[in-house]
């Protein structure tokens, strides 16, 4: 008998007999409804203590704010999505004070060293946010691959204020995640960090050192 069959048969022929299934009451996760402004406030209040940097913008102002933020960090290169509106807007805005822009349009194998060593920042869209935990929802796509939000030292995420949910539970139900998950879905709550050395927090251990969130209101 294969190990699979041995394990399954041991579990099925349990000597203690069949187990009863308890009822699971999810009401403890429910929250009173709140306004969009309150959710943005809560999101900001929760992510800032873990070094998520929040900037409130409008559809008109975000590019100018981004230019300032990147300039203040001396970023020389910015990875942008090729298809998504964010990438198009940046490429079409005509500003010459943005860093050199590049797109992730080839398999990682052909430019891994460049991505790891030369790219200063990347900007991606998000699939929403979670106010209670100060969290961004990312579903990487061929247009915005997985390593975009992980490898460059600065990750800038664009978050629509209207897409901030109160809890993770609410977000996954509202977006019907159970009907089909992507290759990789992510919750991101701040820049990469560790407390493995004597519980002292240090940021940017393996992933981005900075997470900048542009909330579009």
């Amino acid at each position: 008998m294969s190990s699979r069959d041995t394990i399954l048969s041991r579990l099925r022929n349990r000597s203690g007999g069949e187990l009863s299934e308890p009822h699971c009451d999810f009401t403890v996760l429910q929250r009173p409804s709140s306004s969009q402004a309150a959710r943005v406030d809560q999101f900001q209040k929760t992510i800032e203590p873990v070094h998520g940097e929040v900037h409130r913008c409008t559809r008109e102002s975000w590019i100018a704010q981004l230019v300032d933020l990147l300039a203040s960090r001396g970023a020389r290169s910015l990875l942008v999505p090729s298809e998504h509106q964010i990438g198009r807007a940046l490429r079409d805005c005509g500003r010459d004070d943005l860093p050199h822009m590049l797109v992730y349009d080839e398999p990682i194998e052909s430019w891994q060293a460049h991505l790891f060593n030369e790219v200063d920042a990347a900007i991606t869209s998000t699939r929403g946010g979670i106010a209670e935990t100060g969290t961004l929802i990312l579903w990487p796509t061929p247009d915005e691959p997985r390593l975009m939000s992980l490898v460059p030292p600065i990750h800038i995420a664009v978050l629509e204020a209207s897409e901030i949910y109160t809890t993770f539970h609410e977000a996954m139900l509202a977006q019907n995640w159970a009907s089909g998950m992507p290759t990789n879905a992510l919750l991101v709550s701040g820049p990469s960090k560790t407390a493995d050395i004597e519980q002292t927090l240090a940021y940017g251990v393996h992933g981005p050192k900075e997470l900048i969130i542009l909330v579009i209101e």
Partner: protein
Amino acid sequence: MSQTTAQDPHHIDVKEFHSRARAAIADPKIRQNFRKAMDGLMVKRQDAFEGWDLEALRDLGANIRLRALANLPDLLEALETKLTANGIRVHWAIDSDEACRIVRDICIARDAKTVIKGKSMVSEEMELNHYLKDQGIEALESDLGEYIVQLAGETPSHIIMPAIHKNTAEISELLHEKTGTDLSNDVEYLTAAARLQLREKFMNADVGVSGVNFAVAETGTLCLVENEGNGRMTTTVPPCHIAVTGIEKVVGNLEDVAPLLALLTRSATGQHITTYFNMISSPRKPNELDGPEEVHLVLVDNGRSSIYQDDELLDTLRCIRCGACMNHCPVYTRVGGHAYGTTYPGPIGKILMPHLIGLDEGQHLPTASSLCGACGEVCPVKIPIPDLLVRLRQESVDGDKLNPAKVRGHGAKRNALEALVWKGWSWMHARPGVYRFGTAVAARLRNLQPGRLGGWTKYRTAPKLAAKTLHERMKERGQ
């Protein structure tokens, strides 16, 4: 010499718990490192649950885990079907050896020479690094704490914070000696140095090995909880990802993950959520530009299906590996993680390890507890840890005739004299006349009681029997 450097971590005699515990207690550095860390974690956990109906949340967590266990074989099959449809290959391992062989065979088939690892306690249980090394495959830990522990040639002393037994100065010296970094107490500097060293390794690794926090049957999704990003690197950069997990980690629905995640991170480190919650459902698809082309899941039994047979012991399998029980354990805080000599230390280790290594080998584990109950009170999925400790104590002496012992190696601590004493005790208590006569005689002879009772009176005065029995006193009061 500290407890941590004295032994080859792969040949520890678990039965030597007492001597290791004594050495740890005598080491002020170990005690200080643990005390400081555990005190902080207890406060953080409490703060993180502020505003929550914690009892209701713990009930939900417990019920989700119990529901998953009630359907375990069905869920495992459903998980396998869904993962396979998603393109993830599923393997089953009856024990650690088989799990190691499966990982090795995948590596050999890919001609892989280097493996980068994300944090995985099951791989510690398998002693995978050791095994792969013997097979000529280099396995490098990438979680900073695990990296430090691996450089030191040690094993983790805590399931969430593997290097918690070391302070900054010790880590600085270690990194200096092994990797040539400057001596520094600047944690930012030390972390940045490790980042650089490991980025190189991520780029060149042939295989990434990770653990799994929750495996969702409904969608065929592997969930990983982490802060550093090394888990994402491990599961995204190398061309092949192998996840290893215990068979009990499966849950039915995606929805189940939300409350378990809320409980896990708050209980573990007092975080509302970790930096990353990484949900993987498929290898790289044809039009995608990164991610591994191959993803494998190794489902490891290693004694779990035996635990599953018994209604009471089954509760051990609810565990979501948060470590709150060790953070709150007065014994763990004093002796540290290495004293136990087991993969999982602290209260969860005391109830889990006897099943994995046998109750003969792990006979001291269930007794390394004051039964204060803190572990059971903080457990996010309400595992009755103190009850299980008592049960294992009974099993280790074959002490319950009505419920025969079941755990492998049971009865190892049974002592003929002790058994006879308890038999006499039980005989006397079943006979009121004999009991009254016995206690009355004992009360009269109280002055003959020894004043020194071995280890007990080393730090205490010996208890003395009352001059009159309770029955006599009640009689005097006319009742």
